[in-house]
């Protein structure tokens, strides 16, 4: 048993209270500890990814209790990938938050940040649905704090909406878990996979209800139509580095759908296999449309980026909804890409907005370093919209290629291609208003006030550039990455392998 598997959860869990209680009066100390912790988490995540690349499904039994009775953490290629993605993103976002001073504009940023990482990594690693609920709550309660970090009227109001929405979602999650436990008597993902096929199809109504409720809960997290409406207000009003970190939170929802609805309710289980794909596919198509129209109609830069996140989640979930190994490979590639693309856009948006008055998309005097920021915005927008040469193009190409099924191709291709076109138009318009249609600089009193928000330092630019470099790297090394992801999705669809790894070989056969 590898104790390293639980480290991505335990390390931030130990570090966060330490930062919160001991280092709260010394921002330098808190920053040092937070960066050190995140770097160590990153190193651990690389180690875990190498471990998982071997192809074996590693199990960590908490308290060494055997599987259906105790809680297990499961490390396979998919969860290792997600943990690595989380810690890479966390490092980029953390450096941005420190360089721009966002972390000093309120209290306890670093403690909440570490708790957030704990929740996200835990949600990716756990092999138990109730434990998934607990980690969801951990990441949500940290995200409430981060969302309203540094306060302000708009932010508090958007924060309240976000909290109410997610508390209602959590209650629904508990209803789903209660139904599932009442119907099957277990909440372990592998054990569910073993028990649900034993229930005759005509008696499986409760299981179908539970599967559908879980789908709705995960859809709330993944910002899927019709429960996507919380996302634009939340992301647009959150502090920019937090919004960049939240780019991984929507992926937690997508991951949970992939994990639970593949292994427990997935293909091969008569009573529930058609549920997810039947409802997920049309909802994802509408989500793409909502995102695209939102990008066109947005009047603020941050809302524009937030709607592009909604659109990218739609594209991702269209690929997920096919529930086949090939489409899942494409979905995973697009998931990694869209996480970095969204984060990059938020970070660059932050750099732009702090140099302008407000983030409305209107012409104002040209700001310092207009050209450099315009170039960065251009690159990140290309990534998000899915134009060559960055990885968005390859990601969308893979998704389109995977959806060749005659029943799907019409809707999926139309939605993704038209959605991409609208996104490109929206970003092009926003970019030209922001950077090209600048009015003549007038030497009024305002001009002197702007002096402090001057040139971006190298440290401020580095995280956004690192994010863009990840997109470029993802495009250049698309071959090796796709090979790994193909293995990951093959492992995900190997339900018997997962069950025998978690429950032991004898249980899986029965």
């Amino acid at each position, binding site marked *: 048993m590898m104790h390293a598997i639980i480290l991505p959860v335990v390390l931030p869990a130990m570090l966060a209270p330490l930062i919160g209680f001991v280092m709260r009066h010394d921002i330098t100390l808190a920053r040092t500890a937070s960066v050190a912790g995140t770097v160590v988490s990153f190193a651990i995540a690389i180690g875990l990814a190498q471990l998982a690349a071997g192809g074996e499904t590693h199990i960590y039994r908490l308290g060494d209790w055997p599987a259906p009775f105790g809680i297990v953490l499961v490390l396979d290629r998919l969860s290792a990938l997600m943990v690595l993605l989380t810690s890479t993103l966390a490092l980029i976002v953390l450096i941005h938050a420190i360089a721009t001073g966002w972390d000093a504009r309120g209290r306890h940023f670093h403690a909440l940040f570490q708790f957030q990482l704990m929740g996200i990594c835990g949600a990716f690693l756990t092999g138990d649905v*109730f434990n998934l609920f*607990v980690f969801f*709550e951990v990441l949500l*309660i940290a995200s*409430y704090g981060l969302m*309203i970090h540094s*306060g*302000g*009227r708009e932010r*508090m*109001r958007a*924060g*309240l*909406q976000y*909290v*109410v929405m997610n*508390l*209602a979602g*959590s*209650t629904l999650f*508990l*209803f789903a*878990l*209660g*139904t599932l*436990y*009442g119907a099957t008597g277990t909440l372990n993902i592998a054990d569910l996979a073993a028990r649900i096929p034993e229930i005759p199809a005509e008696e499986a109504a409760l299981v179908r209800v539970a599967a559908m409720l879980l789908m709705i809960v995960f859809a709330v997290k993944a910002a899927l139509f019709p429960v996507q409406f919380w996302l634009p*207000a939340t992301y647009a009003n959150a502090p920019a580095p937090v919004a960049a970190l939240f780019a991984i939170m929507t992926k937690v929802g997508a991951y949970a759908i992939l994990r639970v609805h593949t292994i427990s309710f997935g293909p091969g289980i008569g009573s529930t296999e058609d549920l997810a794909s039947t409802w997920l596919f049309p909802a994802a198509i509408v989500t793409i449309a909502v995102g695209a129209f939102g990008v066109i109609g947005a009047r603020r830069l941050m809302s524009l980026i937030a709607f592009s996140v909604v659109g990218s989640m739609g594209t991702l979930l269209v690929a997920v909804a096919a529930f086949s190994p090939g489409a899942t490979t494409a979905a995973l590639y697009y998931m990694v890409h869209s996480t970095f693309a969204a984060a990059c856009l938020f970070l660059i948006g932050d750099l732009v907005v702090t140099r302008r008055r407000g983030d409305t998309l209107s012409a104002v005097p040209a700001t310092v370093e207009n050209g450099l920021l315009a170039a960065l915005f251009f690159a990140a927008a290309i990534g998000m919209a899915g134009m060559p040469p960055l990885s968005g193009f390859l990601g969308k190409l893979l998704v389109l290629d995977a959806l060749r099924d005659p029943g799907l191709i019409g809707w999926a291709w139309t939605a993704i291609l038209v959605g991409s076109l609208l996104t490109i138009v929206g970003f092009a318009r926003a970019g030209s208003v922001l950077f090209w249609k600048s009015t003549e600089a007038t030497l009024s009193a305002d001009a002197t006030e702007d002096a402090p928000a001057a040139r971006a330092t190298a440290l401020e630019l580095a995280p956004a550039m690192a994010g863009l470099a990840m997109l470029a790297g993802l495009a250049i090394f698309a071959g090796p990455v796709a090979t790994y992801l193909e293995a990951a999705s093959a492992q995900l669809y190997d339900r018997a392998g997962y069950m025998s790894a978690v429950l032991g070989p004898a249980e899986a056969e029965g």
Partner: protein
Amino acid sequence: MEILIASTVGVLTAGGVYLILRLRSFPVILGIALLSYAVNVFLFASGRLAIDQSPILAKYGEASYTDPLPQALVLTAIVISFGMTAVLVMIGLAAYLEAGHDRIDIVEGEDDAGDAQS
């Protein structure tokens, strides 16, 4: 017994949903509290209803017992919902003090109209 538990869950849920739809922060907080009570009772019942049974198997193989797992689940859920309600109250209070009103359904642009009334 079943009727009592089922109607309790139903009434609490209905009340909770109604209060959440009021879209003012105090009713919404109460509504979420009611919903979490409903879900706690529901979770408790998901291990089947049993009266006067011990939550562990008796030593000499007496077969009937009440399922201990939902009790553990419900305890976790109670602790989490309690903490979440406290956070929600604080955020609701802060939003009320910042904005001067406690509506939570305001969209962008309606802000000034709300101020004029208050």
